[in-house]
C-alpha cells in the first residue's frame, strides 16, 4: 500500500539528484583548479537522503544542514547559482562570501544553515521547532546530522529536550558508516543507530538511504507524525563515495567496499525505476541531464562573474542594529 507519487515528484527527485551529483563533481573540479578556497565535503552517493527528505517539505518547514549538505540545499530548492557563488567566496553568494561551503544558508526557503561543527545544528533545531510550536504553526523542523554526530553530547541533550517538550522536529541521521576515517564500529557499539531513540522514548526508524522513494514516502508520514506526537529519529543508511574532504587518501577502507556501494547508486536506482515503470523514457532522462548541466554552467558563470566582497563592509554583519 505504497502511496502513489506523481510524475512531477518523480521527476523532481531524479532531477535534483543529478543536479546535486553534477554540482559536486563540478565543485570538485573547481576546487582542484584552486578556485575554491578551504575545504569541501562531497555527498556523492548520498544524494537520496537530503533530496528525498527535503522534497517533502514546505518552504515554512525549517532544515538544519550539515557540512555535507549540498543534497539538503538542493532538496530544499536553494539556488545553485548562489551556492556556487558562495563557494567562490563572492559577494553574491548566500553568505556574501563570508561562510563558504560549510555555512550555506537560505532563510528565505527555510534553511537555517549548514554547520561546521559536527552536531552543531541539533540544539538549534530544537529552538526552531520550539518557535514553531510556540507560534502554533503547522510546520516542522528537520535536523540533519551524520552517524558520527550521534556520539556528541549535543545529540543526546537535544533529542532529550525535544522529546520532553514534544517538539515538532524530525531528526535525520545520514549514516554513511564513517565519521572521517572512523568506521561506526569503532565509534559506537550498536549497528542500528535508530536504537538511540530508546533513550528519549521516541520513535526511531532505519531506512535504506539509497532508496529515494522510500525516503520520500517515509518523510511524508514522519512529518505528520512529528506534528502530532513530537520528535522522531529517522536513520538513512548510505555511503559516501569520495573521501571525507579534499585531503583524504582513504587508507581506512578498501576500494572493494567503495565499489560495492557504487553499485547501489541512488541515482542509477531511481533512473531504472523510472524507466522500468515507464514514467519517463531514456530520452526524457537524457534531457534532464542536459538541462542540469546547463544549469550548472550558468551557476559557474554567475559565480565567476560576481564581485568579491569588500573589506570595507566587514563589520556590517558582526552585530545587528
Amino acid at each position: 500500500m505504497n502511496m502513489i507519487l506523481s510524475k512531477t515528484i518523480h521527476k523532481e527527485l531524479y532531477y535534483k539528484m543529478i543536479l546535486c551529483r553534477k554540482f559536486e563533481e563540478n565543485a570538485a573540479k573547481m576546487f582542484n583548479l584552486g578556485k575554491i578556497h578551504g575545504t569541501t565535503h562531497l555527498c556523492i552517493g548520498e544524494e537520496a537522503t537530503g533530496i528525498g527528505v527535503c522534497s517533502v517539505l514546505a518552504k515554512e518547514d525549517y532544515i538544519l544542514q550539515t557540512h555535507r549538505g549540498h543534497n539538503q540545499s538542493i532538496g530544499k530548492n536553494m539556488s545553485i547559482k548562489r551556492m556556487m557563488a558562495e563557494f567562490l567566496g563572492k559577494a553574491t553568494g548566500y553568505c556574501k562570501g563570508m561562510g563558504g561551503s560549510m555555512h550555506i544558508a537560505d532563510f528565505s526557503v527555510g534553511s537555517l544553515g549548514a554547520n561546521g561543527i559536527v552536531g552543531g545544528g541539533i540544539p538549534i533545531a530544537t529552538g526552531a521547532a520550539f518557535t514553531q510550536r510556540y507560534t502554533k504553526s503547522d510546520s516542522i523542523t528537520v535536523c540533519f546530522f551524520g552517524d558520527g554526530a550521534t556520539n556528541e553530547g549535543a545529540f543526546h541533550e537535544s533529542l532529550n529536550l525535544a522529546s520532553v517538550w514534544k517538539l515538532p522536529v524530525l531528526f535525520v541521521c545520514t549514516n554513511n558508516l564513517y565519521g572521517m576515517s572512523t568506521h561506526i564500529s569503532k565509534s559506537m557499539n550498536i549497528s542500528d543507530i535508530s536504537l538511540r531513540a530508546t533513550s528519549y522514548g521516541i520513535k526511531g526508524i532505519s531506512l535504506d538511504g539509497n532508496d529515494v522513494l522510500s525516503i520520500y514516502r517515509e518523510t511524508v508520514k514522519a512529518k505528520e507524525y512529528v506534528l502530532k506526537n513530537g520528535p522522531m529519529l529517522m536513520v538513512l543508511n548510505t555511503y559516501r563515495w569520495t573521501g571525507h574532504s579534499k585531503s583524504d587518501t582513504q587508507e581506512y577502507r578498501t576500494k572493494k567496499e567503495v565499489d560495492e556501494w557504487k553499485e547501489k547508486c541512488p541515482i542509477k536506482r531511481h533512473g531504472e525505476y523510472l524507466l522500468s515503470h515507464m514514467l519517463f523514457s531514456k530520452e526524457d532522462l537524457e534531457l534532464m541531464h542536459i538541462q542540469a548541466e546547463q544549469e550548472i554552467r550558468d551557476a559557474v558563470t554567475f559565480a565567476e562573474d560576481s564581485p568579491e566582497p569588500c573589506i570595507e563592509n566587514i563589520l556590517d554583519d558582526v552585530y545587528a542594529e
Partner: protein
Amino acid sequence: MREITYAQAVREAMSEEMRRNPNIVFFGEDIGVYGGGFGVSLGMLDEFGEDRIIDTPISELAITGCAAGAAMTGLRPIVEIMFSDFITLAMEPLVNQAAKNRFQFGGQASVPMVLRTPGGSGTGGAEQHSQSLEAWVCHVPGLKVVIPSTAYDAKGLLKAAIRDNNPVVFIEQKLLYCTKGVVPEVGDEYLIPLGKADVKRIGKDITIITYGRMVPRCLKVAGQFSKQGIDIEVVDVRTLVPLDKTCLIESAKKTGKVLVVHEACQTGGYGGEIASTVVDSEAFPYLTAPVKRLCGMDVPIPYNRYLEAQIVPTEDKIAEAVMQLQNY
C-alpha cells in the same frame, strides 16, 4: 523612588519585557516553582505560565543552542545558566553558533537572545561555583557583555539587553543579589543603553575603573580617601562589550592615574583590555603613573571562607593600590 534588591530588579526587567512582548520566553534549570538557583525568578511562573517560563533538563549546551535557534526564528529567548561556571558547557552554541550566525550567514540571521548567569565568589561555592569568566565572552565578536553593579543598572541594562537584536551575555553578581538600590516607580519605564559606562563617583586625583561587585567596594574605599583629601573617580564599566572607551579615556586624561579593579583572576582578565585601551590612547601623555591592575589572584576560588575573601581585591588591597598610585 523606591528601593528594591538587585535580584528584584532583574526580575522586574524580565517581567516588564515579557508583558510587553509575547515573543519573549525564558528557559532555565529550575527557574519555575523553584525560582532559579538564586530565587531571581520567583513568582514569574505564576504570572507567565509554563509556556513561557520553561524548566529544562540539566543540559546547558542544548538549552543555549535551543535559545539560539528560537532567536533565529522569531522569538526573543532569555536563558539562565545557573552558575556562570556552567557556561563551560555552553560555549559551543554560544560562541560558534549564536555569536557567529549573523556574520557567517551573510546577515540573514539575527539572534536576539540574552544569556543570564550569576558570576563571582563569596558564597562558599568553591572552585566550580565561583568563577568570574567574563573575559572569555568578551573575546568573542558577535557577543555583547554586560555586568551591572546596582539594582538601577541591572534593571535598565537588562531591559535594553532583551530588546537588543544580538546575543547578550548578562552576568549578574551573586553577592549583589540582596543589595538594595533606588529605582524609578513601576510605571516609569527606563532603559540604559548598552555601551555606556557610568561615572559612579566624580573625582579628580585618581581614576578607578571597575565593574560588578567591586563597584560598591571601590566606592567605599573612595569615600574613605576623600576624608584624606584624595579625590577618587570611580568609573563603572557596566557594558564590557562594547566598551565605552571615550568615558574611560576622558577620566584617565583628567586624573592621570588609573587603577583597574576586578574580581576575576588577573592573568588574561578583562582588566588587561581596559588598561591597554587606556594606555594606547590619547590619554597616554597625561598618565603620571603606570596604569595599575588589581584583580583576583591567579588561583582557583578556595572553599575556606577566609581564604575565599582574601584572594579577591579587598578594601585594604584597593586602598594600598591607590596609595601606590598616589605616591608614584
